[in-house]
């Protein structure tokens, strides 16, 4: 039976993790995502489903615990916020290199450095351009509501196991802390050890029984072999682009102008396009749901239709670079975004659209950036 509750994004994510049949969570407190581990500890999932929850001594230990459990075929996750994700990136690179399925959640706060505990979307580059060392990418899911943040746990594990690759849920402090109604799915059973051995015995280190030994490593000292390994990873990323791209188009059919925004910015931009339409501006919204893969083709197609594009993020302009690459200069692209923990209003977004894209479509980035410093 489904179950409707009013909850914070972070708590909803934690409850969804239990219900998705996750085997283990390893984390470390950091604002604004500490409710994830607090909720899990209070819920005693060990009793509910047998899920292991452990507070690690550091973000680094937590991600390496994820690596350990993932290497044995268990469904395992961690969550953190920006500075903590920076610490985890070594481990995330190892997960990608050793081809291990795992889910990492970033409830983004402003940076750089210790920055602020308020929401931001300034970890876009870190999330989609690798972040850690080496030639790898993360499959990145960006939720725009508490409901979706919760739903993404199960989706993320499906992708992680489909590709044997780490998946990032890129949320932010707004969605993590915001309370909304959320409907939970029924409890999914955790996989038994026997089923894990049966399903993942070809690679998981569950003990050498009735087969050759399994080895989990990201190391290959022979360049020829290492190149093959890295190219194998790239094949997966291509497949992700072909099979698992996700996006949402809102009022794009007749749009003359386009806003591109993800996560909480998309939520705010949705109101902005509504205000724009009330003023007679034909504006639509493209919301990338996956940030990698990115809806490149969809944007390129829309570039033939619209007169101007405004990329909206809670940052000084990161995703805007991918928007620009996608549209191949067919149409002027501007950026608008507040930063430092300030959240833009729908009115500000509409004003930026009117100033940058409508009045003078040729205005370049730096102008748009100036306006973001209102």
């Amino acid at each position, binding site marked *: 039976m489904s179950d409707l509750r009013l909850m914070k994004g972070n708590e909803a994510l934690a409850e969804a993790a239990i219900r998705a049949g996750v085997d283990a969570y390893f984390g470390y407190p950091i604002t604004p995502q500490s409710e994830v581990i607090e909720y899990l500890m209070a819920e005693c999932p060990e009793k509910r489903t047998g899920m292991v929850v452990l507070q690690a001594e550091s973000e680094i230990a937590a991600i390496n615990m994820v*690596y*350990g*459990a993932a290497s044995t075929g268990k469904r*395992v996750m961690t969550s953190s916020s920006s500075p903590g994700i920076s610490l985890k990136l070594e481990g995330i690179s190892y997960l990608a290199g050793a081809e291990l399925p795992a889910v990492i959640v970033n409830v983004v706060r402003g940076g750089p450095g210790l920055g602020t505990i308020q929401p931001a979307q300034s970890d876009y580059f870190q999330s989609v351009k690798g972040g850690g060392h080496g030639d790898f990418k993360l499959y990145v899911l960006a939720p725009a509501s508490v409901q979706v943040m919760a739903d993404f746990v199960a989706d993320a594990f499906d992708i992680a196991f489909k590709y044997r690759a780490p998946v990032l849920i890129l949320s932010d402090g707004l969605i993590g802390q915001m309370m909304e109604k959320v409907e939970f799915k029924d409890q999914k059973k955790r996989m038994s050890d026997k089923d894990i051995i049966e399903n993942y015995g070809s690679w998981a*280190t569950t003990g*050498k029984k009735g087969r050759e030994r*399994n080895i989990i490593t990201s190391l290959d000292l022979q360049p020829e072999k290492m190149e093959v390994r890295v190219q194998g990873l790239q094949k997966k990323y291509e497949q992700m682009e072909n099979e698992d791209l996700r996006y949402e188009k809102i009022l794009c059919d007749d749009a003359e102008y386009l806003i591109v925004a993800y996560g909480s910015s998309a939520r705010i931009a949705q109101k902005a396009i509504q205000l724009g339409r009330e003023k007679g501006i034909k504006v639509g919204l493209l919301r990338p749901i996956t940030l990698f893969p990115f809806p490149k083709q969809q944007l390129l197609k829309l570039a033939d239709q619209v007169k101007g594009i405004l990329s909206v993020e809670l940052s000084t302009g990161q995703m805007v670079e991918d928007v620009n690459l996608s549209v191949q200069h067919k149409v002027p692209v501007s950026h608008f975004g507040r930063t430092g923990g300030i959240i833009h209003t729908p009115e500000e977004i509409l004003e930026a659209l009117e100033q940058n894209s409508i009045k003078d479509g040729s205005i370049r980035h730096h102008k748009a950036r100036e306006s973001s410093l209102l």
Partner: protein
Amino acid sequence: MEVLDIIKPENQVFCKTSLMTDATLSFCPGCGHGTVHNLTMEVIDELGIVEDTIGVAPVGCSVLAYDFMDIDMTQAAHGRAPAVATAISRTWPNKYVFTYQGDGDLAAIGTAETIHACNRGENIVIIFVNNGIYGMTGGQMAPTTLVGMRTSTSPYGREIETMGSPIKMTELISNLPGTYYATRQSVHTHKHARKAKKAIKTAFQNTRLGKGLSLVEIVSNCNSGWKMNPNESNIWMEENMFPNFPLGDIKVKGKLRQRK
């Protein structure tokens, strides 16, 4: 009598450890790592636990342990083996999980992971090979490098004032309640190797009984890093390493041993 007449199963006294692969060891001739690998695999074989054992390899000279140990193994990031082992043990509580780490891995970059795995009393085995130097990267100073010892990053000898003293991790973690068994051994003679093997076996038996964390330190040589021949390095180890890292049990069955 021809040689082939003698090589018969009934005449066999010693044989290759069944859980060692046929791969050529990557260690320098004279290094103690091969012996520690061998003893660990002998113990797993003798206890009949290979089907339920998962090893965690470190970064360092023994990074390729998985090439030589014919068991399921996961290779961890530098210093993180105890965290990796923690998660495996927590999600597979009936398995035998061990880490195999050097002194740079365990006592420098992985200090936090080592201490906290011990403090939580994780039901794992840590095999800690201490040769007082970074072998794989070419002989740099380790946290365990002796005072006055010359390395490529302490070319005039380690001095306490600026580089601190060699850290005694095994004594340090012995003071944590979660540490059930801590011992320091060596493998440079048959006698010492037999004692070391017994210690490793005790450690795995502790896991079987769910007793918590067991750490077996092996003080070993690094003839390449120390720039000595194997025999000289063993003598130097006895004369210099053992006074700083005295052999013997430090904590047994959760109780600290009185040491002279």
